[in-house]
């Protein structure tokens, strides 16, 4: 495999559960700005692969292989040092914080105090929810929460983004709009993006089918 310094590379990744192999010798390169979709039946190891990349794979799962993100080796780093954002089917907004606080929580600490407010405001505008800052997350609709959840992940300035069945809990009418919204916001950032789904309508970019 040719080494490229920009983007996300998985090299010879193998994942097993209690010594039963799920994935073996899986390799993949995603360039910055590229979206790769992985499809396949449940139990094939799609979500475990994302967990391995994000750093949250736990026993009884076992994994080996290299993960290279913009030249950094991730496999031995704890989650908090990987700079890999994850969007799940649940929005996982923090119920005790306001919408603005949820967003502020993700902002990197290097951003100066005064600018933090501005960034949060801009993110709210970008989410098309400009006045929602002081609101309680419980008062938002599913679609609104999903948008905030995406903005929150992007505010953390990740170097790669993983999407784990991100639209499967939204109702069908909303799904198309959320899909468009998501890929629009992501493409502006030129990140390597890995999407796992079993809805063919979700497929974006290059498609890999696992079986």
């Amino acid at each position, binding site marked *: 495999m040719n080494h490229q310094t920009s983007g996300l590379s998985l090299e010879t990744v193998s994942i097993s559960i209690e010594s039963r192999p799920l994935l073996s010798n899986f390799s993949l390169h995603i360039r910055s700005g590229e979206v790769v979709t992985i499809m396949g039946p449940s139990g094939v190891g799609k979500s475990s692969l994302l967990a391995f990349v994000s750093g949250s794979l736990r026993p009884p799962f076992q994994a080996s292989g290299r993960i290279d993100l913009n030249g950094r080796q991730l496999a031995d780093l704890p*989650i908090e040092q990987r700079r890999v954002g994850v969007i799940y089917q649940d929005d*996982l907004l923090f119920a005790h914080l306001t919408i603005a606080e949820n967003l502020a929580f993700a*902002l990197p600490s290097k951003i100066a105090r005064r600018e933090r407010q501005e960034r949060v405001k801009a993110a709210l505008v970008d989410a098309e929810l400009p006045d929602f800052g002081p609101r309680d997350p419980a008062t938002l609709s599913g679609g609104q929460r999903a948008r905030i959840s995406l903005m929150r992940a992007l505010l953390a300035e990740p170097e790669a983004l993983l999407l784990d069945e991100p639209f499967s809990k939204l109702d069908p009418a909303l799904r198309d709009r959320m899909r468009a919204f998501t890929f629009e916001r992501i493409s502006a950032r030129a990140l390597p993006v890995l999407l796992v789904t079993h809805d063919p309508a979700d497929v974006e970019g290059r498609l890999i089918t696992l079986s």
Partner: protein
Amino acid sequence: MTRHSGTRWWIAGQLLPLALLLPTGFGLLGVLLPTFGFHPGLNETGFSLQAINALTGDPSFGQAIWTTLISGLGGAFLSVGAAFGFCASIYHTPWFKRLRAPLSAALALPHVSFAVGFAFLLAPSGFLARLISPEISGWQQPPDFLIVGDPWALCLLIGLALKETLFLVLMIISALGQVRADAMVRTAQSYGYGPVRAFMLIIAPQIYRQIRIPISAVIASSVGSIDLALVLGPSAPPTLAVLVLNWFGDFDLELQFQAAAGASTLLLISLVAIGIWDVLERLTGQLGRLWIWSGRRSGWADIAIAAFGQSVAGLSLFASLLSVLVLLIWSFAGQWQWPEALPMSWSLSHWGSSMAAIIKLSVTTIGLACISTLLALILCLIALEARDKGGRSRPQILPLLPLLLPQASFLFGVTILWSALHWDGSVAIVIWTHLLFVGPYIYLSLHGPFQALDPRSALTARTLGKTRWATFLEVKIPLLFRPIVTAAAIGFSVSVTLYLPTLVAGAGRISTLATETLALASGGDRKTLGVIAISLTVLPFLALLASLGLSDFVATRRKGLLI
């Protein structure tokens, strides 16, 4: 017909709050009225401030307030901090899932046994001093300073903190099941936050609401601690709760008023402490918000709180284990002179000579525990069913009230009622008094599982023509079998451990293993004390093992029983 049975259920549902609140309310009145000079039992029907003046004029008062505040507030606040710190530092590790068993075992250790064992460990002539003497310490005699019972109540503070930390850890673990803690911590970590900070900023505030009641209970029981205070606390003067106990037991009837004023003060301290806690909690919440806006990802605070939590929780487990060991050693000790670390000879004679007493005390202890647990189970299940509307609701606060007040602040007041009715010292009254504490714990432990029942099971039974009562008996209770068994074990253990309620309600005429242990604790016979304390310790462990065994047995036969 439906409306009719609804009314009947509503009435039945009031039985639990009534059974718990009647004595508690009378107890509070029975303490508050004499505080202001009103005590018809002693032919005082006017109001005066004499009792309060007598209390504040008592030479012990100032020091007692001081040590009560230090040990009670210090112990409670330390244990809350330690419990959160411990959970935050270990939540993301594989250890966390294996904590329940050792925690439950350590919690099954009665306060009284822990106190006596802890004193055996730390006393100048105790196990730890023996281990390092004379080689390391250079002590040829037991050193002449107070470790146990120090005048500042620091030993009591540490004992309380160690004993309550594990209880709060277990409460946090159960609360964690209610939020998607695992995924939220991972999300916060993916933004660059360390796992400890992620837990403290994101998970702790979300589960805090559910452990507010346990925290208030810890504050009340620490401020009003009697069993630990008698063994580990200062003696001249003791803490306020022990002073109150002494005054109420005094033959001088004038002291009854002073005792009542003391009990009211205890109540006031505990309410103020819970109030202070409330303010601290809000401040911490505000601080947390500032922290969130600052965006700092890690720092010394994470390391400090993790280290603090781990050391307190670790010490707590260690001290519990060591306490039991030392009690065991003493119970089988033959000759054991200072500074030998272990007895020079072993003997069964203390067990032999105490066997008759152990059997008698155990029969009383087990009998009281079984009856009060059974009554509490029936009342709690009926109360939960009566309020069940198929949705989720928070536990009622009223049945939990006895846990949120210091025991000494209302128990003495109830005795006025019992003696007026000539019921004092009867077995029935002791059982009722045990119910005041067994009931709330069983209610708390059944509330969650009852809410978790799938409402459709009951609905299906009703559509098949079963009455509400039949559905309750034939569907809900069998589905709740495992939580009921667990709750029964908890109730049994609570009853077995009760010291002050047994002493006060039994008017000293009913002895259990707990009251006997504390009666012996003030004497010098460590070997007999070891024998009785170990017998006391064994009972909750047996209950725990029995409940685990029964649960497993049912689980293997009915795999679908999820709760």
